[in-house]
Structure formats: C-alpha cells, structure tokens
C-alpha cells in the first residue's frame, strides 16, 4: 500500500501541478514531493528497524517489505500483475529518489522561469516512474515505468534545456530507447525458451537461474547472448565506455535540476537493472564473463576521468566523472563478493547524493555567474563563501574523502574486488588500475576549483555578484549532510544492502 500511495501521490500531484498557475507551481510541487520524501524516510526507518535482515527481493520474494500483488492482465499465457515490494537494494534507492526529487524541485525555483507548471508537473511525473522502477517486481510493470522515465526526461531537456537542447534530447531519447529494445530482445529470447507462466521478476529469476538445455547459436549459449544483449541495453543507461556519449550532451544541455535527477537517479536505473537482471538472473553467465566486464568497468573509470581532465565546462567535468564513478559500480558487481556487490550498491546511493550535490552546486554558481566555463571566472570564494565551501566539500566527497559517502562505496568496492574469485589473479591488477581513478579525479577537480573558486575575483557582469539565496543553498546543505552521515555511518544503508546482496554472492571475502 505504501508504494501504491507514493505512486498515486506523485502522479496525481503531477496532474495538479500541471493545472496550477505558474506562480504557485514551484512551491506546490515542493510541498507535494515532500510527502513521498517524508513517507520514504518513514518507510526507511521502518525497514531499518523491522526488516533489516530481509533477503533479496528476487530470490526470496516472501521477505520483501511493503509488498503488494494484484493480478492485472493475462497476456498470451503470461500472468502479469501489479506487483511491488522493496528489499535492501531498492529501499535506499527509493529514498534517494524521493529526497533528491524534492531537493531538485527546490533548486529549480531560481533557474526555471518559464512554463513552470509544466516543468514541475513533469518532474513529479518522473518521480512516479522512478519510484516505480525501483519498486516494481513484475517485468511488465517495471518496463512501463522504465520507459516512462524517458518521456518527462525528453521534454525536460528538450524544452527547458540549453542552446543545443533538441539535439541532446533526441540523442538521449533514441539512444536509450534503442538500448531498451535490444535489452527487450535479449530478455524475451530467454523468456520464450523457458516455461515461464508469469512475468514476475522473482519467477523470472528462478526460471533463468535454473534454466537448462538452452539452445546455442553460433557456438554461444543463449544465456550468454541474452546476457550480452541485456548488458548492452542497460550499459547505455549507466553509461559505460563506449556507450556514454549521450550523457555529456544531455547533462550540459539539461537545466540544473534535471541534471541532478539525471546523474543522481537515472544513471542508477542502469546499474540497478544490471544488478537485478544480469547479475541476479544470469549470475553464472556473469561470473563466466567477469574479466571482460571488469575490463569494461576499469576502462570506464580511467577513460571517464581522463576525459573529465580535458573539459572546461564544469557540468561536463562532472558528467564525465559520473562515467568514471559508475565504472567502479561495474567493477564491484562483477566481483561477486559481499563487499564488491554491496559496495557497488552503496556506491549507487553515494554517487547519487554526491553527483546530485555537485550538479546542484554548479547550478547555484551558474545562476549567479551565467557561465560554467573554467577560465571565465575566478575567485568566487570571495563573493559566495558558503556556496563555495559546499562546492569544496562536495568536490572532496567526489574525490573519495574518508568519512564521506563516496569513500565508503569506493573502498568497499576495492576491498571486494581485490581478491574476487571471479576475477582470479587478474583481480589485484584490475582493482589497482581502477583505483588510479582517485588520483585523476583529484587532478581535475582541484584544477577546476583553483581556477574558478580561488584567486582574485574576476567575472564580467553588469550586476553585483553576491551570495546565493537561502533556498538555493539549503538543498546543498541537506545533501552534504546526508553525504557525511552516510560516510560516517555507512551501515545505515550498507547493512540492509548486504542482507539483500549476500544471497547472491554466497559468502566469500
């Protein structure tokens, strides 16, 4: 019921905001989105205190929290139902989504000044879809939400974006949509070759994990082919090298609150789906393909970081560094160790908070300076001390400073991957190579900070540059606080994550 309520509130809220006058839309949307945010915090609290030891939603569906199943459609012999539920993986991501949406909506008050009711309505609609993606336990339902995210995102980039918004929006839409198609093909090739009667994810997991006698095509098992197709489909969303080029364009063109959602939550859809589909349902294939997948992850880490080094646009820097950070997640997932996969899941949450914070901070600076180019401005610390202070803190969080969430995620991934049995003797080498990302990330963020924040103040404007408004800085402070809290006490999330992850890994380091 709780999940249904979240979906209903955001969907109805979306409609209400669309119909409201522009003047009130922002405040109304913030108030409406505060409801699911607070509700999910309460759900989180309940989960933490009562369901902390719940297992994996796909492997032991009886243990999910806030579960609900209502039969819906009987399609060509496949039973489809409205089936939702949360486990230790989806609960933190759900809370991340609702909290980040509220903060993103508040951060939109300053920059969004036209078609406000539509903007906030679409933001809430996106929240509905995102909540659905993380909560759905039926494939059909999940896919509806999965694709449903694209629609508001397309308009949010295409209408409120920067100068090349149309290019970016179309590129984003087509790229991810084609990827969904390929994933769909891979998945259904498997569905049709097993005796499934239901499209519920737990049923799929059971059928795929125990599938035997799958046909082989050109010498490859269907499981391998489907795995690759699905990996391709989800990897676009993550994104990993070389499927990443939609991301910098989308980020640069999207308005700040949309970038926040894009980096903070949308990218996690990709890794979440990878975890749920590829690494849960086709675990054996994933382990067999661990080394090439790990190489993909490591290359993403280093490649993304190196590209970030070459950028001048602050948003582009953060966008490329997202590619780098998500590469760690891939590495952690393929390790198939509790800390590796758990760290990867934790990193999704941590990166969601930190990249959201980074984009929001860049946005606050942009609201004031109207430029994001390193080199166009310097010495901002002189004029907006608190914003810059948070920027510095966020940047260090991004660099993996201990006692901030990013470090916990990265360290756990490294720890889990370093002696991963799936990677064999390549594990220490690959892990060490990925770790080098922490040096490069420090390089470009420190460089960008030195150029923009410090030194004598200079910026060509015809107005006085001053501190940002309270409602601009407050979401930053909230996010920073969350990052620090999760860094000091990772177990607030990590404990439930581990309980959901360990059934997959079957012990180990």
């Amino acid at each position, binding site marked *: 019921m709780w999940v249904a309520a979240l979906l209903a509130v955001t969907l109805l809220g979306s409609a209400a905001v669309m119909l409201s006058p522009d003047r009130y839309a922002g405040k109304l949307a913030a108030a409406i989105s505060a409801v699911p945010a607070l509700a999910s915090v309460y759900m989180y609290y309940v989960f933490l205190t009562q369901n902390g030891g719940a297992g994996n939603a796909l492997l032991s569906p009886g243990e999910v929290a806030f579960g609900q199943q209502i039969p819906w459609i009987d399609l060509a012999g496949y039973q489809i139902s409205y089936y939702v539920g949360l486990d230790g993986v989806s609960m933190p991501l759900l809370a991340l989504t609702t909290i980040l949406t509220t903060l993103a909506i508040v951060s939109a008050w300053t920059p969004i000044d036209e078609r406000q009711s539509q903007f906030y309505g679409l933001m809430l609609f996106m929240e509905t879809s995102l909540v659905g993606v993380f909560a759905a336990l039926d494939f059909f339902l999940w896919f509806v939400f999965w694709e449903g995210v694209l629609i508001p995102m397309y308009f949010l980039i295409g209408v409120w974006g920067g100068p090349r918004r149309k290019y970016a929006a179309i590129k984003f839409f087509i790229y991810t949509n084609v990827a969904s198609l390929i994933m769909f093909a891979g998945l259904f090739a498997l569905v049709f070759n097993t005796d499934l009667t239901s499209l519920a994810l737990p049923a799929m997991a059971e059928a795929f994990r125990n599938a035997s006698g799958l046909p082989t095509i050109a010498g490859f098992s269907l499981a391998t082919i489907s795995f690759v197709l699905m990996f391709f489909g989800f990897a676009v969303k993550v994104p990993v090298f070389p499927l990443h*080029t939609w991301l910098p364009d989308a980020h640069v063109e999207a308005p700040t609150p949309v970038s926040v959602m894009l980096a903070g939550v949308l990218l996690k859809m990709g890794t979440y789906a990878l975890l749920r589909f590829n690494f849960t349902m086709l675990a054996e294939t994933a382990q067999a393909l661990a080394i090439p997948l790990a190489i993909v992850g490591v290359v993403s880490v280093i490649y993304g970081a190196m590209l970030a080094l070459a950028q001048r646009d602050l948003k582009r820097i953060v966008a490329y560094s997202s590619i780098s950070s998500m590469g760690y997640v891939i590495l952690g997932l393929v390790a198939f160790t*509790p800390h590796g996969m758990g760290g990867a899941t934790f990193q999704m949450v941590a990166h969601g908070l930190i990249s959201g914070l980074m984009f929001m901070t860049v946005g606050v600076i942009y609201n004031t300076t109207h430029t994001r180019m390193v080199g166009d401005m310097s010495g901002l610390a002189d004029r907006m001390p608190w914003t810059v202070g948070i920027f510095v803190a966020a940047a*260090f969080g991004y660099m993996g400073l*201990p006692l901030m969430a990013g470090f916990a995620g990265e*360290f756990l991934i490294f*720890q889990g991957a370093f*002696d991963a049995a799936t990677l064999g003797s390549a594990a220490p080498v690959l892990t060490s190579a990925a770790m080098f990302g*922490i040096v490069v990330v420090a390089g470009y963020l420190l460089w960008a900070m030195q150029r923009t924040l*410090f*030194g004598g103040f200079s910026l060509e404007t015809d107005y006085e540059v001053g501190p940002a408004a309270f409602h601009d800085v407050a979401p930053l402070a909230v996010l920073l606080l969350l990052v620090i809290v999760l860094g000091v006490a990772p177990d607030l999330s990590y404990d439930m994550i581990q309980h959901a992850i360990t059934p997959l890994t079957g012990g180990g380091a």
Partner: protein
Amino acid sequence: MAAFTYAPAIVLLPFVSFLVALFAGDRMPKGGALAGITATGGSLLLSIWVALTVAGGGYHNEFIYTWVAGVESVTLRFGLLLDPLSALMLLIVTLISFLVHIFSLGYMNDEGETGLPRYYAGLGLFTASMLGFVVANNLLMAFMFFELVGLCSYLLIGFWFREDGPPSAAKKAFLVTRFGDYFFLVGVVGIFATFGTGLFAPVTQNGEVVAQSFPVLAEHAVVDGETGPIAMLDTVGLGAQAWFTVLGLLVLGGVIGKSAQFPLHTWLPDAMEGPTPVSALIHAATMVAAGVYLVARMYGFYAISPTALAVIALVGGFTALFAATMGLVKQEIKQVLAYSTISQYGYMMLALGSGGYIAAVFHLTTHAVFKALLFLGAGSVIIAMHHNENMWDMGGLKDKMPVTYYTFLSGSLALAGILPFAGFWSKDEVLYEALIHGLGSEGGLATAYVLAYAMGLLAVFFTGFYTFRMVFLTFHGDARSDTARDPHGVRWNVKGPLAVLGVLAATVGFINMKPVAELTGAHIDFLHAWLAGPDEGGWPAALVTSSHHYEELLHNVAGVAAGEPLGATGTLLASAAVSLGLALAGAGAATMLYRGPDPVEHTDKLGGLKTLLMHNYYQDEYQVWLATGLTHPLARAMDKFDQGVVDGVVNGISSVSLFGGSRIRRIQSGVVNNYAALLTLGLVLLLAAFGLAGGWF
C-alpha cells in the same frame, strides 16, 4: 584505566573546536581561537594523563566503533591503540598544536587577518585528524585520518585564497600526496584482502587474543611458514615474504608522499605559501610526521622484509642529502626550513630502514620540538619584517628581538646537531644505527645501509652550513632594509610558545643520551625503556609492538645485524665524534663566510651548480611536465578521440539513417502512374517469389 576511557576525547575536543569555530567563530572573540586553545589544551592534559598511565604499564587496544559490519565478510572498525609510541606522539601533537594555536593569536589575530573562523576551524580539524591517525589501531582508520590530514593541509595551505600562489600550492600538496596515497590505498586494500584484518596490534581480552593483527600474521607466515590461511598468495602467485614486501612498499608510497621523501617531496616547499603557524604544525607534528609515524606504527610488518628496509633506508639517506643541498642556496627563511624538514625526515626514514626504530622515534620527537620552534621563530621574524621573508633583506635582528633570537638559536643548534642540543642526540643515534647495521649485515642490505649512512653523514655537514647561514643572515650583521632597521614588535603570545619550545629544544635530547648512558653505565636512555615497555608483566603477552620484539624480528628474519669494529663503546663514540665534527665543520664554514656585518652571497661562486640547486634539480619542472605536458595533452587527445570517433560513430549512425531516408523518399514522386507501376511491380515480384518458393515453375 580511567585515562583510556577518556582517550577518545583527545580526538573529539579539537573536532568540536572545529565545529564551533566554523559555525560560531565570527560571533566569538578572537574568531574561534579560544575554542581551539581550550580544546587542544584539554587534549594536551588528557594526553599527559594517558602517557602517565602508559608509563605505569598501561596499554589499551579496543574497538570503539563499527564502521561497516560485515555480513559474511570483513568487518571494518575503528579502534584506539594506546601504547608507548602513540602516547608519545599524542603528547607531541597536542603540545605543538596547543602552542601553534597560541602563536596564531599573534600571527593571525594581531595582524588583522580576515577569515579567522575558517583558519581556526582548519587548525582544529587538522589537529583532530592527526590525533585520530595517531590513536588508530588499524590500517583503514589510519588511512582515513591520513586522508583527512591531507584535506586539512589543502584548506590551510590555501588559506589566503585570494592570491594566486596559495591555492596553487594547496592543489599541488594535495595532488602529490594523493599520488602517494594511491599506492597506500592499494596497500591497505591488499593487506585487508591478504590478512582479513588491518589491526596494528592484536586485541586481547583477559589475556586471550580475540583479533589478530596483520604484522603478527605476516610474521607467522614468514617465520613459521603458516601460509595456509592466506589465500591471496595463490592469487598473486608470490611467496609470503615477496608479497609482504610488495604490500609494504605500496603502503610506503603514502609515506613517501606525506613525509615528502624523494621523489614526492616537491609539494612541501610550495606549501610555505600557507600561514607560518600552519607550516609549523604541518612540519613538526602533523602531516609530514604522519608518514614516518605510520612506518613506525606497523614496523613489525617492515621488519620481516629486508628489501623494504633497504628501500626505506636508501630513500631516507638520499632524501636527507638531496634536500640538504637544496637548502644551501635558498634566500627565503621558510624555504630553508622547508628543505631542512625534508632532509630531517629523510634521517628518520634512514633510521627506520636501517633498524633504528628507537632512533627514528627519538628523532621524530626532537625534530618536532625544534622544527616547530624554528618555524614559529621564523614566523616571529616574518611579523617583524612585515611579511617579507627574504633573508637578504634582514640582518641585525639579534638585538631587536632577543627572545626570538635566543630561542631560534637554540632550535638551530638542535637542527645542526650540536652537543648538547636535542638534535645532536637523535641524529647521532640515527647515524650510529645505520653505521653498525651497515657494518654488521650481509649482502645487499649492508651495501644499502653503508651507502645510506654515507649520504646521511654528508648531509650533516650541509645541515650545519645552511642552518648557520640562515641564522647569520637573519639575525647578525647590519640591517639590510628599512623594515629590518625598524621591525614590528611581537607580543607575549609569540614569545611564550617560543620560550617553551626553546627550552625544550635544548633539553629534550636528554631523554635518550645513549652515548652518556654507554659511558657511565647509568640507565638514562629513557626512551629505550619507554618503547621497550616494562620488563616483566604489565603488558599483555600478546603485545608485539615493543622495540624488543622489533629487534628480534630485524635480527632473525631480515638479517639486520650489528657490527662494531671498535667495540661497543668505541664505535659509539667514534660515530658521535664524526657526526659532531661534521656538524661543527658545517656550522663553522657558515660562520666564517656569513659572519661579517655585510655578508655576500658566497654560494654564487657555485655557478651552474647554484642554478641547479635553486631550481631544485628541476624536480618541479618534470613533475609539472608530467601533469601539464603529458597527462593533459593525452586527455585532450582522448577527448578528440571521444568526440570524433566514439561520438562520431553515434552521430554517424544517425547520419546514415538520415541520408538513406533522404534518398529513398525520392520514390514518392507524386505521380500516380509511378505509384501504380511500383504497386504492380511489387505484386509481380511477390508472385514470382511465391512461385519460386512454392515450386510452381
């Protein structure tokens, strides 16, 4: 042990002062300084209490917080390890930090600086991070606070962010140490993966070991051949000792970065851009000391690897000499001190590498005192000189600021290693350890030690020279500028810390007068006794961090042996005489050259060599080139590749689609006859296809 119950407060007090200064500093008198002084003062008192408890045979190694509770996996925890080493270091850090806070009243508040809350918040966090690092009982916690120390150095070196220099220096400091920390992190992860624990010392309950430590596990693996539980060895395909050497060297990467050893020393001279009290804190007690302290903390792990020991000794010896030569020609007082810091930490590394664990800790202690003193003295001079740091603009300050002069002189004599000041005793012991182990060990280890000893010995002469060049240029002769003729006065808050440290710099060496102890037979080598722990009982049997245990390991596993060609006493005295002689020679040479009322720059006679030294052997240039000349163009090339090739393929696919569409749509000619023809053609083709497939023909 009541003291241990309150030990976490040692770390938390400065942290609270950080929060107070940050959020309420601008509403408090002195911009949050009082909070910092109170907190570090409290920490100092608690540290004294802890040290007294440890002196009474107390020992504490407990977990206090579970950071990540592993489910079917490694649990990561925070804990306190309070033993003689950490208790001593706590004393040093809290004392120096306390004095630096007081000095800052004079250096920052009285000089009318803005942003004081930020400054005192930084100092508080810096102190808290370092203290957290010192008390850490496992490698992960140590790493985390090690990184926080790096963050604080960034914030404080870049304190004057409105200028161009400090932010750049701060960036460099963080980046270069981060490069070292990369290896450290790999080492930490590797150690956890190998041993399943990062504990420095076993945790015991009622005499039973409940959590084993990694140096002990490594020792078991190497000495007793218990490699069974260590699955990592199969993964990497190395023997136990070889793999542990790799891990040790990886951790050493972090040490080389933070302790500014060659080749990652380049950040430290630039870090002089920060406020001088911060330099004192960084150099004497916190960041730079952290590296050496880490090696001492996990010495049991290094003591089983002769290769790692040889590398440490060589890096240390080379750095000692290398940095000392660069210090010869510097013109700014803080630059000379910066290079002397690098050089002195080289000595500590030399001692650690050559089996002189106690000597290294001793030098760490004395150096903390006299280097803090010298920096604070330099700060006093800089206040007087209205923030002009060039020694060639000074001169004759001796009579105008006697307190500063005499305390600075005390620190200089200690730095140069002149009897009986602190530096003499510790540096002498460092060199003595290197010498006897170089003479007594066999094979490559002996060669490495002798080479490292030779470099360290040569550096003694240079140390004496640059130290007294600095003293004479700054304080003696005639004033060479208007500000030097009429210097700005300093108040009690500057003189007080100087006086305390000045007295300590003269006397702290007495805690370990090994030559005197050897000659008279009196048991006055207190530090030896301190680090060895009580002879009997007192400590749990499992305690493996005593210097006795390290000596056994060094001797039995690494093959470090002592050779004393002139007999025990003779070798000791000969070594002391040689190093004292060289120090006096260096100091004397500087006195000869720079004594007069109007000294000239004699080092100009070095010609091209001077240029080389002034440019620091072009170390900065090649490292900057690595960053901006190599990495950045590479990144740009990759960006081109990304935009051109990777994104090009994506855009190419859409272009092909668009192009194909634009061609195919031309069959939509608008002429009905054509449509009809195509329709007919399609029908005919379809019929033909069906016919062929159905076998109609």
